[in-house]
């Protein structure tokens, strides 16, 4: 008896000391939460959750691969305590939801024909091909059978429909689907999903800089699910009201219907649902993940900054926006005139974004009011530099700084500030004005001037109408409004009167020569063709770049090292990650690309938000895998499409010219519900229902 006790004591002591020594020698840091959660779980090692035992389950919870309520053997209370360890409220953690990505209106015509097989997997084994585009969803419901939570059923159109309230995100359906149609993603995976070169993407989705799922929202409009359409757009673009008005819609240029007929009016449909939400008077609810406790400073409250802040907030990071102007919106508030984007519309849109709990500081400028060092010192973990392109390029001709001469962005933003109640910013308007430049800024300037009652408004451009970089609709609108176009004219000098005020512009006539690097024909001056137009006001709008004067601030050593390109844009290590050479500084929008589209900035903001999210999680900031970045999938771009019956495109209602040039009231109007529904039926739902080119 005694020896047995002694032996067991000895053995116990030996084992214990070996283990305690081993735990010192072989110590590896492990997230302390794993141990804590393991202690809370039932400890039955039953594997009911799908993981190999409780410690594996705890590990999965901490790594975000499972939900706090995963334990099948434990009660509600355990889930709540596990969630508490993770700093989440049980139930409100990022839900992983199964989604059916195949949402075509009609099943592919050569879909599965019943031949005695009851499972999709067996079918796809028989007929081969993981993603054979001619056969979409097989509709035999393997996903339905495999779902232990009864969350999936086959809907009336033969596609699986997921009941989001029952789905727990176990991924069983995703694994069993032989066509990769059902996917299970968390909110951040969904929000930070970028086009992949192996996705079935319609040409418009491939081309949209914000990568909005266009066929899906058009389909939702067709089904009168306008709220669903708003949510679809908002997953990629939080500024849908603004985009619906000002976007030059590159998506429509590549629309497959456009090959045989007029392109689908995608942007008007976007505007229609966006206005539908606004007119309903209530912001649709937007879900945000619980706070991660990480703080991000977004510098610049323009489209890029707002988009970045929106997506970061949705995945749970705390965001503060710093902006140098009195109100948020950046270039879309101060650069885009009232008649294109009314301020109250913008106000409503920004209110919806800030309502998510995003803080902002107005009237503070980087370099003068705060520095990157001060942000770091106050605990910000990452910085997004979305400072836009606010510095007008100078024409570099004699007399361009005379009285009565202005620059484009400066003029538009001052006028906008004046219009919004800042009387210090009043600009003395002349009677005969010219705007030099052929871009959207120049067009915005002339259309603003004509509304201010200027008698003669010229636009002076050194090439011809075909080379103008401005949007064609804008050029046409300007023509209708009576703007005089002076093409092939190179300004030589600005002439002054006795008081040092502008009295005219001398220019040389040009002719077009060989194409240059940008593919546009280079204008060549004609000797001795000097011409003068009499003016009392001149605006130069020949392009703009980011204002990086903050780099010269001696006290901000961190920023002195920030790499910029020779166009003053902020240089990112990879245009797909938008991380600068200083790892915690990210960029996007015009600050990264030079003056570009609003929708480009929105896409850039989301891209940067993804990188910031990765950076804050301590993961490597790399571009998304197989990403389709600024490229098209060659085989999806057709040269012709057969069997299309032309249907008339919805006409955009607009104010009559004589009425609209008298005021700043919005010129373009929204289409009616009836024509939106009609227009939505023009969509060919490319790459969703499978289109067989040869049939």
């Amino acid at each position, binding site marked *: 008896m005694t020896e047995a006790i002694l*032996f067991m004591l000895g*053995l116990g002591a030996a084992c214990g000391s070996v*283990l305690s020594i*081993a735990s010192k020698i072989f110590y590896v840091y492990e997230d302390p939460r794993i141990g804590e959660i393991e202690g809370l779980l039932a400890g039955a090692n039953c594997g009911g959750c*799908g993981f*190999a035992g409780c410690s594996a389950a705890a590990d999965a919870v901490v790594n975000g691969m499972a939900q706090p309520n995963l334990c099948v053997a434990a009660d509600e209370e355990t889930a709540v305590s596990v969630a508490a360890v993770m700093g989440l409220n049980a139930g409100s953690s990022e839900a992983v939801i199964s989604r059916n990505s195949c949402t075509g209106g009609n099943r592919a015509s050569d879909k599965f024909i019943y031949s005695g097989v009851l499972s999709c997997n067996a079918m796809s084994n028989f007929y081969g091909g993981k993603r054979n585009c001619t056969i979409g969803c097989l509709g035999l419901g393997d996903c339905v059978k495999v779902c*232990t939570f009864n969350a999936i059923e086959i809907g009336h159109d033969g596609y699986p429909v997921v009941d989001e309230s029952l789905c727990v995100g176990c991924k069983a359906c995703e694994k069993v689907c032989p066509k990769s149609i059902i996917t299970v993603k968390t909110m951040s995976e969904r929000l930070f999903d970028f086009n992949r070169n192996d996705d079935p993407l319609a040409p418009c989705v491939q081309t949209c800089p914000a990568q909005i799922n266009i066929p899906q929202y058009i389909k939702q409009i067709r089904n009168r699910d306008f709220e669903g359409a708003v949510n679809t757009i908002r997953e990629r673009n939080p500024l849908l009201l603004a985009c619906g008005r000002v976007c030059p819609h590159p998506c429509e240029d590549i629309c497959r219907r456009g090959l045989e007929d007029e392109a689908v009016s995608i942007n008007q449909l976007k505007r229609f649902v966006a206005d539908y939400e606004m007119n309903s008077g209530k912001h649709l609810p937007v879900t945000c993940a619980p706070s991660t406790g990480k703080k991000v400073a977004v510098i610049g409250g323009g489209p890029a900054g707002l988009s970045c802040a929106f997506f970061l907030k949705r995945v749970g990071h705390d965001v503060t926006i710093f902006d140098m102007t009195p109100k948020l919106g950046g270039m879309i508030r101060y650069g885009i005139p009232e008649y294109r984007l009314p301020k109250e519309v913008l106000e409503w849109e920004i209110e919806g974004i800030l309502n998510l709990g995003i803080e902002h500081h107005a009237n503070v400028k980087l370099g003068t009011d705060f520095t990157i060092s001060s942000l770091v010192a106050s605990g910000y973990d990452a910085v997004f530099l979305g400072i836009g392109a606010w510095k007008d390029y100078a024409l570099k001709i004699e007399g361009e700084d005379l009285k009565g001469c202005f620059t484009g962005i400066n003029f538009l933003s001052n006028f906008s500030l004046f219009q919004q109640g800042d009387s210090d910013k009043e600009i003395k308007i002349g009677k005969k004005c010219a705007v030099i430049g052929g871009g959207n800024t120049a067009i915005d300037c002339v259309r603003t001037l004509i509304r201010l009652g200027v008698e003669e408004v010229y636009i002076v451009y050194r090439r011809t109408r075909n080379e103008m970089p401005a949007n064609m609709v804008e050029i046409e609108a300007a023509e209708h409004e009576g703007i005089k176009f002076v093409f092939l004219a190179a300004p030589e000098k600005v002439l002054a009167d006795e008081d040092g005020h502008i009295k005219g512009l001398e220019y040389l006539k040009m002719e077009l020569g060989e194409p240059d690097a940008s593919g546009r024909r280079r204008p060549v001056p004609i000797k001795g063709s000097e011409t003068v137009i009499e003016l009392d006001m001149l605006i130069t709008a020949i392009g703009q770049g980011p204002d990086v004067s903050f780099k010269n601030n001696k006290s901000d050593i961190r920023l002195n090292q920030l790499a910029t390109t020779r166009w003053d844009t902020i240089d990112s290590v990879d245009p797909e990650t938008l991380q600068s050479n200083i790892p915690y500084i990210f960029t996007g929008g015009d600050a990264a690309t030079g003056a570009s589209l609003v929708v480009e900035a929105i896409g850039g903001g989301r891209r940067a938000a993804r990188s910031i999210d990765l950076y804050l999680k301590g993961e490597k900031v790399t571009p998304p895998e197989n990403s389709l970045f600024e490229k098209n999938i060659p085989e999806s771009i057709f040269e012709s499409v057969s069997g299309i019956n032309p249907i008339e495109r919805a006409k955009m209602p607009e104010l009559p010219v004589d009425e609209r040039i008298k005021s700043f009231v919005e010129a373009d109007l929204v289409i009616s519900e009836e024509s939106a529904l009609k227009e939505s039926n023009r969509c060919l739902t490319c790459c969703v229902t499978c289109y067989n080119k040869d049939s």
Partner: protein
Amino acid sequence: MGDYIVLAISCIFVNNILLAQFLGNCPFLGTSKKMETATGMAMAVVFVLVLAGIITWLTNAFILKPFNLEYLRTISFILVIASLVQFVEMFLKKSMPALYAGLGIFLPLITTNCAVMGACLINIKEDYTFIETVISSFSYAVGFGLALILFAGVRERILLARVPKPLQDTSIGLITAGIIAMAFFAFKGMV
């Protein structure tokens, strides 16, 4: 040599630890839902069972036998196996992170596994020599893995089958396990 092969075959098929001796049924049901998990578990059992077989044989031969403490065999084996598994886990985590990533999560599961314990006790009961112990431990583990992986394959299919409501999940699992066990009876006359 021939004897060793016969021993291996008898341990893998005839006296399969899961389907003939009915040991280790909890991980058999728990980790057989996914092929991935089942394979990992099988590997881990092979790894641990060989080590445990060796250490328990040594404990028995050099500590328990000389001091006539064989009546403490079960309780001391529990202690030895549990400590061994914990030690191996720590060792792998530090020195072989790759192997740990594959097996690590299964190790704590095996700490209290009756299949491991049972195999070790059988080794002693049958008076195996050291070499025989190594072979039988390895073969028992292979048999365990074989049954587990077979069962996981079947269960993955069952997920897609139409199972009557009352029989779903574990109950159909147990019924299937019974049928597989009957199939294994066919090996009875082999050795």
